[in-house]
């Protein structure tokens, strides 16, 4: 168990290096354009040189590469071209909202996915099963920005049940802590639902087929022979072994969750990393984009590591294979 964790952690180091190098190559491979982003027609030659020197763009490429790698080790990811805010401070500011949104979406994904799968597997080919399988196929094809926009239109603008954007109401600073938390949850629900729904459809589709597989196992027959209640057989005896691969599935769905959060944050003006990435992309603010891209890739690497380790924790068979 311990050796598995150590081995995976050691593997993480070269992967992070490779990911950082690829990010650098993509940015530098564009002929001149990275340096041109600090360019402006109104600048004199001296000002241009001063700017390039300030951001280290006058250095030869191998120097820039080494300082990029060094900046990752020290956590100092440079300064935004546009707002002059250090990138690490920008990340510290935008990461908590994104983590909150992502964690809520993941929770919703899991809870809703399990509920749909179990209800559908209770009567395969019944009406709920048919409706939910059409629904999960359709939701996978619908663009997330479209679903989010429609959600805003119906639940925020037409019905007025939820706020259409942002994380807090105006003047939320003056509310009591409890009211402020309620305000936050009120703002959180729509974006988290939009982000979690797509994942829930995938989880449900996957878990349903595993549930049906497990139902054919002998220990289910044995449980039924002992006269156990159907409900208990389904929720305890069938669900528990079927849930194991879902841990891996949640790890695998992390890249989509991270990508999806960009779209959802953009629709709901949620002040997270995704929105910052988008604003940086429109302003061609290369240091911010590089920093966030690297963070996204590292998050995915760490997420898949955590999923693998968790899988080994819940499933002893994987532990034996692993060591």
């Amino acid at each position: 168990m311990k050796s598995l964790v150590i081995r995976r952690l050691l593997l993480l180091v070269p992967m992070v290096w490779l990911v950082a190098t690829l990010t650098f190559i993509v940015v530098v491979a564009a002929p001149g354009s990275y340096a041109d982003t600090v360019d402006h027609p109104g600048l004199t030659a001296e000002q241009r040189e001063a700017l390039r020197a300030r951001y280290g763009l006058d250095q030869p490429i191998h120097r820039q590469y080494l300082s990029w790698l060094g900046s990752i080790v020290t956590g100092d990811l440079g300064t935004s071209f546009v707002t002059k805010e250090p990138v690490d401070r920008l990340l510290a500011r935008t990461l908590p909202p994104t983590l909150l949104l992502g964690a809520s979406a993941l929770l919703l994904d899991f809870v809703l996915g399990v509920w749909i799968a179990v209800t559908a597997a209770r009567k395969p080919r019944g009406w709920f099963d048919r409706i939910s399988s059409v629904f999960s196929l359709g939701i996978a094809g619908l663009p997330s920005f479209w679903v989010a926009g429609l959600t805003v239109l119906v639940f925020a603008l037409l019905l007025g049940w939820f706020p259409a954007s942002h994380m807090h109401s105006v003047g939320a600073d003056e509310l009591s802590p409890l009211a402020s938390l309620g305000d936050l949850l009120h703002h959180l629900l729509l974006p988290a639902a939009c982000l979690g729904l797509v994942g829930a459809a995938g989880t449900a589709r996957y878990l349903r087929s595993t549930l049906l597989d497990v139902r054919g196992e002998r220990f289910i027959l044995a449980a039924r022979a002992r006269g156990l209640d159907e409900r208990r057989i389904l929720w305890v005896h069938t669900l528990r072994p079927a849930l194991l691969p879902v841990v891996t599935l949640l790890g695998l769905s992390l890249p989509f969750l991270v990508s999806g959060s960009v779209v959802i944050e953009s629709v709901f003006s949620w002040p997270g990393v995704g929105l910052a990435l988008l604003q940086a992309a429109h302003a061609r603010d290369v240091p911010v984009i590089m920093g966030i891209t690297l963070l996204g890739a590292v998050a995915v690497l760490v997420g898949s590591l955590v999923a693998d380790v968790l899988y080994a924790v819940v499933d002893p068979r994987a532990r034996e294979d692993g060591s």
Partner: protein
Amino acid sequence: MNRGRRLEVGVTGLCMLVAFCMLGPLLLPAPPAADPANAALLAPGTAVTEIVLDDGRALVSPEVREERDITVVKGPLRKVEVTNERIVSLRTTRFWLGSDRFGRDVLAQLMAGGRISISIAALAALVALLVGTTVGLTAATGGRLVDSALMRLVDALMAFPVLFLLILVATIFRPGPLVLVAVLGMTSWMGLSRLVRGQVLTLRGRTFVLAARAAGCSPTRIWRTHYLPNLSGPLSQDTALRLGDLVLAEATLSYLGLGIPPDIPTWGAMVAQGHRVMLDGWWLATLPGIAIAFLVVSLALIGDGIQERLSLSE
């Protein structure tokens, strides 16, 4: 959905949509001209009169009244009166799917946007297919060192959330349509190269390949008669699903304003514009979104259908 019919349903859906985009403009009557002053944000099915004047300008409005020698065009913002001598032609037509806030016909835009979106996704899938197959084959046949180097590269590239990679590349290279094809293709070949490598490595040990080799068949013959037919099934399944992903990726980039320039209509950009006037025109964002979903679901059904056929033939 009746299992076993998925392939047919998917192919039918795909053909219908492609025919709609490609043949629609030839079969349908010409759409009304764009008149932002009088015909903006008209609901689907609105009948309008299109008047072409002698200076080439076109007036389009749902409310046109003819009086003795003048014609009155009443728009939401203004009332225009033109003398009848100035009118070159006058016809009644319809915005079948409504008009946008610039008075443009949504039906015509949907078809034009579909042609762009589908072509970009198809070309990008082709790029991904070429790159992925090349990398996969090189890894499978190039010896241990090449194999592990390429596969670690693929691992690292797959660690990037796709949208982040797309945004990074799309920001560095300002995309025109062809650059977008390259960007989408170059960011989606990784899964395919893994698939090709895995398939080739499995096939290499199969009895029929060993038998062919023992019988003295040339490598070209073994590739033609054994590898390619066995690769084509999984590859076409993967390509169908990948096309769906590419359609969504292109739409997402266009929606976020990072796709091709906004004057070229694409479905993603149409949804983005529709969202700005959500309360005044629900049809603007809704229709292109449904078109995207229709396309992606058709492709998913084709992918599932091929998978079913493959597992049956195993």
